[in-house]
């Protein structure tokens, strides 16, 4: 892990708001995209990720060591997202953004409709997986994290990352049976 992050988290623990600001700026994109991948709505992703940082600020004194900041932040994010989805399911209060607003092709070629549609189908299949599977696919595919980083953030052994990715991809493969 970045030593700088650990040092910033230690300073933030001692009440240094500027250190916390640096932490927010370091992790805001990761937090936003992680949440966006799970909730499928840009406004909600922004709201949930910002709320997670507020909770992190309020609870940072309980953090045992600065080294644990990234996994601790992710656990807050996961809880916030889970609570949001539970509430949204109960109240039916959220709508998913159109896949076209969430997913784009890396080298988008105009007119490649077939490829775009395929990507949207894959995205919808990912969105219908259980959250634990979605989470690991988002981290690996869309956040570009390597296995060590994922293991650190989820607090699991590196070997379990590969098994979880396999289970998620196997489930996705089943959902996309006619395409693959």
């Amino acid at each position: 892990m970045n030593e700088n992050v650990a040092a910033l988290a230690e300073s933030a623990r001692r009440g240094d708001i500027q250190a916390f600001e640096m932490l927010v700026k370091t992790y805001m994109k990761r937090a936003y995209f992680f949440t966006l991948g799970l909730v499928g709505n840009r406004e909600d992703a922004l709201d949930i990720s910002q709320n997670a940082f507020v909770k992190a600020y309020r609870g940072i004194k309980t953090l045992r060591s600065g080294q644990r900041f990234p996994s601790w932040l992710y656990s807050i994010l996961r809880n916030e997202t889970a609570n949001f989805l539970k509430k949204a399911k109960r109240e039916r209060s959220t709508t998913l953004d159109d896949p076209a607003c969430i997913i784009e092709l890396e080298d988008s070629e105009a007119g490649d409709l077939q490829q775009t549609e395929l990507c949207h189908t894959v995205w919808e299949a990912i969105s219908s997986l259980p959250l634990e599977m979605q989470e690991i696919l988002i981290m690996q595919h869309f956040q570009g994290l390597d296995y060590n980083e994922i293991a650190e953030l989820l607090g699991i052994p590196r070997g379990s990352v590969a098994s979880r990715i396999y289970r998620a991809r196997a489930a996705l493969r089943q959902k996309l049976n006619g395409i693959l």
Partner: protein
Amino acid sequence: MSCDKFQPLMMEYLDGELDQEARKLVDQHLAGCRSCRREWDSLKKLKNITSSMQLAQPEEEIWKMYWDQVYNRIERGLGWIFVSIGAIILLAYGAFHFVRDFLQDSQEPLVIKIGVTSAILGAIILFISVLRERLFIRKTDKYKEIEK
């Protein structure tokens, strides 16, 4: 080695996390196992599709405003804490005086006094119970209960 053992290795291979020696092992297995080969081909195709996808970037403005919005929420949260503390103190003070005067009022029937005292005791017990639950009982992982 059984196919089950190769599945995680196939993922590491696919994601470029495997060293050369282990890659050779997987290659050898894939050459001799038709069902793993089939699975490998479709997972590779899936990986190719997802590699061409990315989450849509929001407007740059979001990142410029991000910290300010977080800071405002922190500040507002602090404001609400003070407002809540003040409101609780004032309400508790008012309630205490109201109940004391009510119980000392000799014109109020005894049965009403007993009813009010009982309701207040019940409310206190409920409040303590909820507070204890929130503070001390370990939360379960709500994440696992969610299914889309």
